[in-house]
C-alpha cells in the first residue's frame, strides 16, 4: 500500500519533470543578475575569481548559513554518535585496522604536502578556482590521513573545537566590524588592492581563510566521529528499555539534583 502510493508519487514527479524538460526554452536563461554581476563585480570587489565575489560578497550570508549548516551537522552527528555520559575515551579504542609502518610513515609524509596544497587553495581562492570549501576539505583529508593510518591515535577534539569556534566567529566578527564602521553587515572591508595579486579583494581572502579553517576543522571532526567507535551500544537505550525514557530521564535529573 505504502509502496504503491510512493510509486505513484515518484512517477507523477517523473512525468512532471519530463514535461518541464520538454517546455524548456533552448538557448539559455535570461541571466539578469548574472550579467549585471559580471559587469560590476570586478570593479566593486576586486577579486579576479568572480565566483568568489558572488560567494563571499554578493551572497556572503549564504556562505555564513552554509558553514553554520556544516557546524550544525557536525554538532548533531556528535550528539547522535556520542555516549550520554561521554565517558568512553576515544583513545582507548582503536578505530581501524593497523596496516603497518609503511602506511603510517607515508601518511606522515603526506600530511605537510596536503596541508600546503590546502592552504594554497584557500589563499588563492579569490584569484583561481578553489577556495575555502575545497581547501578546507583537503585540510580535513590531511588531518584524517594519519588517523586512518595509525589506528588508536586519538583526535584532539578540544583543539578542533577551538579552531572551529574561532574560525566561525571571526567570519561573523568581520561582518559585524563592517556594521560598526557604518556599513552593512558583511560588507567587504579594506581597499581592493591590485587585481590579481595575492593581497587584493579587501577582506575576502580573510573570509575565505575563516571558511577554510572552519570547514577543515568541522569535516575532520565529522570524519573522526564516524571513524571512532562510540562504545558498545550500552549508551543508547535499547528498543525494549526505551519504553519510558522521559520518566527515566526525569528520574535521573531528580537524583542528580
Amino acid at each position, binding site marked *: 500500500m*505504502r509502496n504503491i502510493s*510512493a*510509486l505513484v*508519487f*515518484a512517477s507523477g*514527479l*517523473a512525468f512532471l519533470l519530463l514535461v*518541464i*524538460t520538454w517546455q*524548456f526554452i*533552448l538557448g*539559455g*536563461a535570461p*541571466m539578469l543578475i*548574472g*550579467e549585471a554581476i*559580471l*559587469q560590476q563585480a*570586478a*570593479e566593486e570587489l576586486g577579486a*579576479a575569481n*568572480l*565566483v568568489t*565575489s*558572488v*560567494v563571499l560578497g*554578493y*551572497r556572503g550570508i*549564504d*556562505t555564513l*548559513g*552554509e558553514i553554520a*549548516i*556544516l557546524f*550544525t*551537522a557536525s554538532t*548533531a*552527528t556528535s550528539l*547522535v*554518535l556520542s555516549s550520554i555520559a561521554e565517558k568512553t575515551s576515544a583513545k582507548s579504542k582503536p578505530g581501524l585496522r593497523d596496516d603497518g609502518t609503511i602506511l603510517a610513515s607515508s601518511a606522515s609524509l603526506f600530511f605537510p604536502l596536503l596541508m600546503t596544497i590546502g592552504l594554497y587553495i584557500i589563499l588563492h581562492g579569490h584569484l*583561481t*578556482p578553489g577556495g575555502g*570549501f575545497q581547501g578546507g576539505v583537503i585540510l580535513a583529508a590531511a588531518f584524517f590521513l594519519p588517523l586512518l593510518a595509525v589506528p588508536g591515535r586519538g583526535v584532539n577534539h578540544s583543539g578542533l573545537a577551538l579552531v572551529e569556534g574561532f574560525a566561525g566567529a571571526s567570519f561573523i566578527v568581520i561582518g559585524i566590524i563592517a556594521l560598526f564602521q557604518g556599513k552593512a553587515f558583511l560588507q567587504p572591508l579594506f581597499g581592493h588592492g591590485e*587585481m*590579481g595579486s595575492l593581497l587584493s579583494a579587501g577582506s575576502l581572502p580573510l573570509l575565505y581563510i575563516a571558511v577554510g579553517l572552519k*570547514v577543515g576543522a568541522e569535516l575532520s571532526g*565529522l570524519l573522526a566521529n*564516524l571513524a571512532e567507535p562510540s562504545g558498545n*551500544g550500552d549508551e*543508547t537505550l*535499547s528498543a*525494549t*528499555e*526505551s*519504553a*519510558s*525514557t*522521559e*520518566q527515566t530521564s526525569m*528520574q535521573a535529573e531528580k537524583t542528580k539534583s
Partner: protein
Amino acid sequence: MTTNLIHWLLYGGAMGLIVIGIVGVVTLTNIFRIILALVIAEAGANLLLVIAGYRFDAIAPILTGQALSAMPTTQIMVDPVPQAMVLTSIVIGVGVQALALALVLKVYKNYQTLDLREIHHRMLADIDHSSGVISLLSEEQPKGERPLPEPETKNVLNSGGEK
C-alpha cells in the same frame, strides 16, 4: 543543431539523475542505499542549476591575463551566480549525508537491520510501547516472520522509575 543536442543531453542528464534518485529514495528499502539515492538526486539538482547559468562560447567567470587590466572584459562569461549556489548546496549535501549516516549507524545498532519497512514497524511498535498503546499495526505485519517485542501490559506511567 549540435547546440540543441547538447542542451537536450544536459537537461536530460540532470532530469534523469533527479528522477532516478527520487525513484530510488521512494522505492528502495535498504536505508544505506536510500542515502546514496538521495546523493544522486542532489547531484542532479546541482547539475540543473549549473546548466541554468551556462551559455555557449562563454568562458569561465575568472579574470586572467589581459582581462585583468581591461575591465569590463569584452569576453562573454558564464553566469557565476548558479555556480556559487551549487558550491553552497554541495557542501550542505555532505553535511546532511554525514548526519544521515550517523543515524543509520545508530538505527542499525538498535534494530540490527537495514530494512526500512522493518525499522518502521519496530519503531511504531516502540512508540506504541512507550505510550502504552498496544500495536495498532498487527494486522498489516507479515505474520510469523519475526515477532515484535511483546508490549508490556502494566502501566507505563508507574513503571517509569523502576529501571
